Structures are given as structure tokens and as C-alpha cells.
């Protein structure tokens, strides 16, 4: 069983703060982390490998420093990792990114199962997973909260998908792509030996040429969408009204205020 996990390095948004004077994001000192949903993707791949055997390959597209998320993947037990990095990829939107990742998966010999996080916490699009599945021509199972069964002989997978109103149990033939939510597992921590091994590992970098990417389909050239403006959302008006006084006064006051909104029926 060969599993390919797609991960993304994102800014650790816990550290993102708004400068009250300029009303902009303070980026200085913001650490980069592996997208949290992708940690669940790596963990799930490792668990499948431990149960069924096989290999876990982890790929990421990003600037040279994105190599850090691959070292972490090696430290927890990934077999092979690849950095896809090239100036030609700069400005890629979800269509172009999914294209580049699908070309990479083809270049490394395909996969029986591709796992992505539900979405990345910086862009929050949830579009790259389905985009890769479509390019590879394999079925997609999004929002997976549990893998019930993988049958290698019959080449099928059964999963639970976490939807608005409950969980849907779905079967698909392999190869397939799944995107996972947080509920699926609890990621392990790397071992000391793992960290040491990962620190010394030589990590291959793939360029647009290496993966045979069509230059018209990557970077800004291959991106239909274009960010024309970035701005800080308006702060919530006025700040809060703290109801002060004895609880047997403020509780009825709060109820009155909420009843006046007509939202309570």
C-alpha cells in the first residue's frame, strides 16, 4: 500500500495579532507550522501503514523553508518526502496548486491512497484535495472522520464522512483521495531518534521541470483567480457592554436585552 500525504506549511495563526494602531497583521516572529489538519493526515497514513504495510510518502509545495514540515514528517515515521519548490510556482491559486501536486504524485509513481487535510488554516479553501482527485481521475472522499475498512484484495475503502447533520458511511474503489478532519486520530509526537534521523536526511527538491509541469498551468499563469485587495475586516463595533451589578439584577437585564432582539422565539 503506497500512501501519499500532501501537506502545507502555514503561519502559526495563534501568534497572529492585529496592530491596534495600523490595524494590520503583525507578522514579525510568527512561526511557521505544519497545517494542523495535515498532521492528522500524516498520522492516519502512518496508522494504515502499521496495519497493512506499505510506504508513506509526504509531499509539500512551497518556498525552500517549507522543508521543515517534511523533516517533521520524517521524524514521525514517513518513508520518503519531497519538496516541490520553484519560482515558477509563485502565485499559484488552488487550481494551479492542485495541478502541481497531482503532477508530483504521478512523477513519484502514483498512489493507492492520497490523504490531505480537510483544508489549510491560512487559506481555508478546502479546494486542493478535490482538485488533485479530479486531476488524477480518482474518487474523492472529503471530511473523513474515520476509516472503517481498507480491503487491499478487493481494492476498496470504507470511510465515515462528518457532515452537517451526521456521519455518512461511504465506499469507494482504490486508488482514492481522502481529506480528513480533526476527529480522525490524535497525532503522535516524534521520537528523539526520529528527530535526529530527520535532521540529517537529504530531502529531494523537485522543480516544475522535474515533475513535467506545463508552464501554462502553474504559478500566476495557470491561476484563474487573482487577489486584488487584502484588508483587515472591520473590528466588531464598539466593544462589549459588561453588565455590572448583582447577579439577580444583571441576569434579568441580559434576558430583557436578548428578548428585545426578537431572535428568541
Amino acid at each position, binding site marked *: 500500500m503506497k500512501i501519499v500525504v500532501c501537506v502545507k506549511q502555514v503561519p502559526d495563526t495563534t501568534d497572529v495579532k492585529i496592530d491596534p494602531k495600523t490595524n494590520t497583521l503583525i507578522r514579525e516572529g510568527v512561526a511557521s507550522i505544519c497545517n494542523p489538519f495535515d498532521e492528522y493526515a500524516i498520522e492516519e497514513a502512518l496508522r494504515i501503514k502499521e496495519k497493512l504495510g506499505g510506504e508513506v510518502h509526504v509531499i509539500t509545495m512551497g518556498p525552500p523553508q517549507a522543508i521543515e514540515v517534511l523533516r517533521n514528517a520524517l521524524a514521525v515515521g514517513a518513508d520518503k518526502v519531497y519538496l516541490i519548490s520553484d519560482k515558477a510556482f509563485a502565485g499559484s491559486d488552488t487550481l494551479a496548486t492542485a495541478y502541481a501536486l497531482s503532477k508530483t504524485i504521478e512523477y513519484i509513481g502514483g498512489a493507492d491512497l492520497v490523504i490531505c487535510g480537510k483544508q489549510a488554516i491560512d487559506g481555508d479553501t478546502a479546494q486542493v484535495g478535490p482538485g488533485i482527485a479530479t486531476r488524477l481521475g480518482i474518487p474523492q472522499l472529503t471530511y473523513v472522520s474515520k476509516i472503517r475498512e481498507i480491503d487491499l484484495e478487493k481494492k476498496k475503502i470504507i470511510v465515515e464522512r462528518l457532515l452537517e447533520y451526521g456521519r*455518512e458511511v461511504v465506499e469507494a474503489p482504490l486508488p482514492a483521495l481522502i481529506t480528513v478532519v480533526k476527529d480522525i486520530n490524535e497525532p503522535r509526537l516524534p521520537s528523539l531518534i526520529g528527530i535526529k534521523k530527520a535532521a540529517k536526511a537529504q530531502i529531494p527538491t523537485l522543480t516544475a521541470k522535474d515533475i513535467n509541469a506545463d508552464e501554462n498551468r502553474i504559478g500566476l499563469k495557470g491561476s484563474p483567480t487573482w487577489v486584488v485587495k487584502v484588508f483587515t475586516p472591520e473590528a466588531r463595533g464598539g466593544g*462589549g457592554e459588561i453588565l455590572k451589578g448583582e447577579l439577580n439584577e444583571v441576569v434579568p437585564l441580559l434576558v430583557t436585552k436578548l428578548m428585545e432582539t426578537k431572535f428568541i422565539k
Partner: protein
Amino acid sequence: MARLLIDKDLCTGCESCVPVCPFGALSMKEGIAVVDEKCTFCGACVDVCPVNAITMEKEEKAVTIDTSAFKDVWVFIEHEFGKVSGVSFELLGEGRKLANALGCKLCGMLFADPELAEGFAKEAIAYGAERVYLVESPLFKIYRTDPYAKAAVDLIRKYKPEIVLFGATTQGRDFAGTVATTLEVGLTADCTGLDIDPETKYLRQTRPAFGGNIMATILDYPNYRPQMATVRPKVFPMPERDDSRKGEIIREPLQMTEEQVRTKVLEFIRGTETVNLADAEIIVSGGRGVGGPEGFKPIRELAEVLGAAVGASRAAVDSGWISYEHQVGQTGRTVRPKIYIACGISGSIQHQAGMKTSEIIVAINKDPEAPIFKIATYGIVGDLFTVVPMLTEEFKKRLGR
């Protein structure tokens, strides 16, 4: 390739551009701003430079398609469990404004089982669709990616809409990505604002990013049509329903058989809660302050009196006090109820990312310094185990329940 150009002679080293870059691509080197490969050419820095030292050289893409062949605004009419989803009506309301600005028709795109199709189409018309493109097939009984994507791709190729809008639900976000990739067009995720640029007539799509810390406005280059977006539910108001409205229904067959559908739905396990976070007008949420699984009891009691859904912070979910379906925030769900009552939740930036666009936020917390009070409409500083039962009693009294 586009390029960001910084004029070394003009740059005064004022550093105003560095903090506005959402991607951290700008830094100072020997008193002059420099840009690295993290730049996505968003142009945020161009606008703030006080001396106009930053310019962007954008490669003009040759328009190779006939954009005039693409017209009308389409809204995907989503349905589940025999009911049209509210977000589809909200999008018909917003789509009406876009269609008026463009002087074109507003149309619904509907895929349904023959038993339900006609009724859904009539509802779409009652909410403002002038025309409904309908694909009827028993394959649409339960949502699956393959037949939905196939029907949408075929319809869009044949009728060439200018704009296609989907609800940013698990359904819309699942297959819209497939449709956009197959058509090789743009798709903007989870938009919260839409309007037509008065000059170019392009669709301007505004969406939150970085957990809602920044907003981005996105356009599609003119050689990619239709312009497609998924739009967050409960952002736009529900339009008036008018059953006297007339509209035409255009039927197209589905070019797919059951054998060609690769996935099979084996079972559906309904959530245990009677009220769902996605639909809830009111949410009562508990955080670290509830202290344990039994601490959710007063929260559930208040929710029951209000007909509200129960939410939770990541701290409560990770402690195993309540299941993940309830988690609100960056790694949980994004909600936008009319009233959000946060009990014992400090209000980390990740939690705020999932709820700060709620209309009214009520915070109940022992710690007067908790960040949740900064975004709350009303706050009470106090122990939730005292305050919440008092609220429940008071609401019971007023509502006669």
C-alpha cells in the same frame, strides 16, 4: 511572470509595507524593503507605500475566449433530506442583485430525483429564479460527487453561464472543486461578499482568510469563465418568497449510469443533537470553564429552553468532555448564529475565528480579563454554574416554558 518592483531610490525605509504583507514576504535589508519568494503579488504593500516606491508589473493575459458568450447568473439549488437548503435561497437573493447589475437572467441549477424535482424547481422560482436548469435522475436521491459534478459540468459547458454560485456547505465545497478543476476555471471558496465591479463588470469575491484575520477580494482573469464561488451560509438575508412568480424549466438528461458512479453510500448516521450547529439561530457554547462532561448539563438546559444548538471550544473537545461535532473554531466549524452565548470560554483567536461574525455575542466568564469580553456584545463576569442556571430560569419564566 508578474513581478513586484521596489524602487531603491524612492524607498525611504519607513517599513510601512512590512507589517501589511499577509504572507510575510517583505523585510528590511540595509534600510530598504526587499521581497522574497513568499510574495503572491496580492498588492497589499503597493497601496500602503507612502512614496509609491512599490509597483507591480503584472503580465497581461491575452483574452483567448469570447467572454460575451457567457451570460446569466446561476445558483446551485442544493437539497438534503427532501428539503432545499436555506443557503440556496439566500444565494438567489444575492444572485438577483448581481443579475440586475449585469442586466442578465438569474437561473437555478438543480439536480434531483424525479419525485422531488418539480417542487424544488417551483420553490427556486418563488425565490427569484427566472429559469431553472433541471437534471432529473434517481441517481440524485442521495448526494454523491460523481453524478453532481457530471451534471454541472455538462450544463455549464452547454449553456455557458457567466457566474455560478454554490453554498459553502460540505456538499457545495465537495463537488464545486471537481467542477472547477474539470472546466479549468477559478473557484473562490467560502465567500462572504459578492459584487459586480462597475467598470469591468467582473465578479468581485470577498472572503476571509487567516482565520478571519484578513479579508481578500478576488477576481477571475477574463480568459476563465464562468466565475465560480462557494458562499458561506447565513451571510446573505433570505429573500421574500413569492409563489406567484413565473419561470421556465429547462430539462437536460444525466449522461451517467449508476454503474459509472464510483462511490456508494452505505449508511447515514444522524447526529444525536436535535438542533444542528450549521442551522442554529442560537448557539450556547461551553469551554474550559465547564470543567468536565457533567459541566455541559446547565449548558444543554439553557440550549433546550432557547431551542439552541450546543457548541464547544477546542479545550472542551480535546479534554474529551464533548464530541468533535460540537467544536466551534479554526479546527472545528465556523458558525454565524444570531446569538452566540459563550460560557466559560476565554476566547482564543482560534475560537474567535469560528464565531466572531455572530450577530450578538454573550460572554459569561469568571475572568474579567478574558479576551472573549473584547468581542462580546454583552458580558457578565461570574461563575457560569451560577449565571447559566439563572438565565435558564429567567428565560423559562419569560417564555412561559
